[in-house]
């Protein structure tokens, strides 16, 4: 073996990228050649130093911010695609004469929205309820188009009292309803995922808590439990999910939460869900926590859930780690 080949083998040996055959051959050389031993030592040291310098911990806040930005970009892209599809459909089968108003429509694309908003405001001030359905459609459109950028919530926390929303879009809309109203709920879900103000997201989850969601908004709550930067929001999401049917997605989200969440209360809530719906897939995570967690009561909680598994399986627990 040439010097360069030996060096390459030394590097791959340190990287654990040699097969068993190559390892035996290289270790024979290593035992005899001093230079080889030196290279191995230096490669190891190089890796150790580089790894320690480049170890990066990305904060949950940073990720949350990026996820929200991505959500906005994707929403905008979807709306653009919808607009393009709309104008394409409008153009199908029209004569030149007929195309004129279509071109006009596509140029002033915001006009229907403005008109709808104006109608909503007029109806609101006239106190007429007949436009409620149309308002709902308009607000949904605003949400889908990403125009729902800022919403103020006014609620006294009383379930029986209406929630008033002031929506600042191209124009201002005021909307009133209670948490049983589908549209109010959808706006609240939207805010839970999109609003940048952690205090407002907490307010939103508290309002949603009052609604009997009955499996609605499950993915929103899972996403919120996993990724909201505000621990209060994560905790409330986890608690609300306790009343949901625990499918694989929810179980997996809870496993991720008990392993990774920095907040003990959130982890305990996720553990409650796991405890109520034991599946073998959660055993390794619980075993890791039982052995390695920094908090003794979290460890003992994992221990107690694992003990339930043993009871269910005649004293046996699989898979062992």
């Amino acid at each position, binding site marked *: 073996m040439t010097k360069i080949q030996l060096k390459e083998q030394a590097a791959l040996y340190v990287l654990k990228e040699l097969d068993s055959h190559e390892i035996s051959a290289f270790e024979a050389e290593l035992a005899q050649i001093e230079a080889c031993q030196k290279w191995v030592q230096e490669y190891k040291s190089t890796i150790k130093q580089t790894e*320690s310098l*480049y170890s990066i911990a*990305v904060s949950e806040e940073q990720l949350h911010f990026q996820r929200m930005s991505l959500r906005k970009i994707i929403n905008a892209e979807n709306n653009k695609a919808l607009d393009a599809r709309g104008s394409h459909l409008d153009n199908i089968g029209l004569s030149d004469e007929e195309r004129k108003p279509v071109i006009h429509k596509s140029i002033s694309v915001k006009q229907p929205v403005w008109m709808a908003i104006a109608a909503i405001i007029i109806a609101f001030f006239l106190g007429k309820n007949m436009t409620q359905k149309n308002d709902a459609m308009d607000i949904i459109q605003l949400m889908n188009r990403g125009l729902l950028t800022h919403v103020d919530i006014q609620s006294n926390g009383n379930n029986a009292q209406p929630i008033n929303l002031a929506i600042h879009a191209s124009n201002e809309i005021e909307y009133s309803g209670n948490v049983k109203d589908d549209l109010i709920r959808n706006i609240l879900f939207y805010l839970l995922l999109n609003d940048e103000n952690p205090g407002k997201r907490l307010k939103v989850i508290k309002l949603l808590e009052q609604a009997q969601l009955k499996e609605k908004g499950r993915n929103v709550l899972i*996403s919120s439990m996993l990724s909201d930067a505000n621990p209060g929001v994560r905790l409330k999401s986890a608690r609300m999910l306790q009343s949901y049917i625990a499918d694989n*997605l929810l179980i997996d989200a809870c496993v991720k939460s008990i392993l990774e969440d920095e907040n003990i209360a959130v982890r305990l809530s996720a553990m409650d869900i796991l405890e109520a719906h034991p599946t073998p897939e959660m055993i390794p995570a619980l075993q890791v926590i039982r052995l390695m967690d920094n908090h003794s009561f979290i460890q003992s909680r994992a221990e107690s859930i694992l003990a339930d598994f043993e009871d269910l399986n005649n004293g046996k627990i699989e898979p062992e780690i």
Partner: protein
Amino acid sequence: MKPEVQHLILDAKTGNAEAFHALVAYHDEKMMTLALQLTRHQQDAEDLYQEVFLKAYRYIGSFRMESSFYTWLYRIMVNSFLNHQKKEGKMEIQEPSLDFPDPIEALPADPAPDKEIANQINHLLSSLPKQQKTVFILKHLQGLKIREISEVMDISSGTIKKYLFRAMEKMRSGLKDYQFGRNQS
């Protein structure tokens, strides 16, 4: 691939944006870490993150589920990063400057490397050819196997080994004095 992730991918492939966002939440920590390691620059890393997931959203329909979702995302990120370097020369890794906030410099490291060694490592890594540097980061800092890097970069394992060895050798050679005392060679 976990069944839950598989389920989310299938949903996302049908255009379910929420399923895609759930996939992002599952995978983005590693992707942001890689973006920071590749670019060594906060804003560039954030741009790279957005670009990768936006591309993933646009092209998830073409993801054939033959590789892991991570491998697919890594591939998008590495290609985007290399393309940026090639086309614009904009995302070149820069040596951390005193005037310039370095997100990585501020992070705790164990054991804490000497400032001089840290500068030397940054200098050596930034002077590696981009392919070697990418392979080195994927191997050491992301913990991928050579076989996986080969899949991500669409280059043979033999070539990856060569890149890796050359990068290792340059780093070893450049750090020799710092590792074993300045007086030794």
